């Protein structure tokens, strides 16, 4: 499993318009302007590639920050 820092980087890479420096472990990602149903799919896909874990839409909706999501993936 990748580190939290690497995860935040991989998370940021799925966004086209939001600058990378916006992304921190405590970023409330669902409040980002670019966040939407398609970015959610990109994140599910990225997690599958990076961690070989399939998270659901409900998993994402249960998380507030990027770190929450990272912890959830580690618990799977």
């Amino acid at each position, binding site marked *: 499993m990748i580190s939290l820092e690497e995860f935040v980087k991989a998370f940021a890479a799925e966004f086209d318009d939001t600058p990378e420096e916006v992304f921190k472990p405590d970023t409330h990602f669902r409040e980002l302007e670019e966040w939407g*149903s398609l970015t959610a799919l990109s994140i599910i896909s990225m997690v*599958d590639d990076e961690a070989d874990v*399939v998270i*659901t*839409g409900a998993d994402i909706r249960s998380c507030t920050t990027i770190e929450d999501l990272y912890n959830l993936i580690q618990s799977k």
Partner: protein
Amino acid sequence: MAFVEVNNIKIKGLTVCVPSNVVENSSYTVVPESERPAFIEAIGIERRRVAPEGVCASDLCQKAAENLISEIGWNKEDIELLVFVSQTPDYRMPATSCVLQHRIGLPRSCMTIDISQGCSGYVYGLGVAGSLVSSGSVKKALLLVGNTQNKNINYNDKSTWPLFSDAGSATAIEYCPENGDNFKLSYMADGGGEKTIIIPDGGYRNMVSAESFVEHEYEGGIKRNNLNVFMQGDDVFAFVISNVPKASRTMFERFGIQQDDIDYYLIHHASKFIINKLLKKLSVSEGKAPLQLKDFGNSSNASIPLLMCTSIKEDALSKRLKLYISGFGVGLSLGVGVITIGALKCADIIEL
């Protein structure tokens, strides 16, 4: 996984019928004009076929069946089985397959079956109709598969409105004990995802009431009522990527199929995102997975026959092909398989 192997049959031909009415996503006013090009690029769907009021899946399937029967020269009197796979039947009762027996002019000696499946429906239909023919007791069967899901979509729901295309298909399957085709199929269901794609009201669990027609607003400005389709896209995606590659690999192993021997991958056109991810996870080489997403969007259970009658039509008419097929979605339900077919007598796409 349930495995179904079907031998001693042949697909004589097929036809797909789409509505002539084309709807352009570039004119979808719910998405601001400046954002529309990027939106269309992201979903990969430029235009769709939408059945006008009064045109049902059964009408599209009927027209496809009439063209097919005449092109392959079948005598209607010989058709002993009609299987209709759809989630947009004419009525809650009677069964649409029964209604179609009369409308197409099939004999009253015909056995008729309705199967309620959406995107996985073509794979289910091949398994059921094929198995009934393979024993030889039924010699000629018509498999009619189609949906007019646009009838259930709310214009103000951008998570569904730009995606779906209406279509009906007809596939002729006959008993063929020598040098026939074969279907190697595999299925699974996960009813735990019943609410992932659902029309909540209008069945017998939640019967139609005045409340069913009340439009509610959801996240992202989406509006719909309880007679509209609701789809939780991210959960569909998670279901597909965690199950379809695994189910496919298990099916390859069970039937001893080498992926290199597959001529084409006909993957249900759920969305651009899902297709691309599946191609990657299944290690499909470029050029082996034809796409019709741009012009036909998600044609639900008719996606696979639509690909056969468009992208690979010439090959399907002229030679034998080993085709990977997969359908997945509402249920949640999935069917994957490898079918060996070819030298079809008909692979037409027509309009109504």
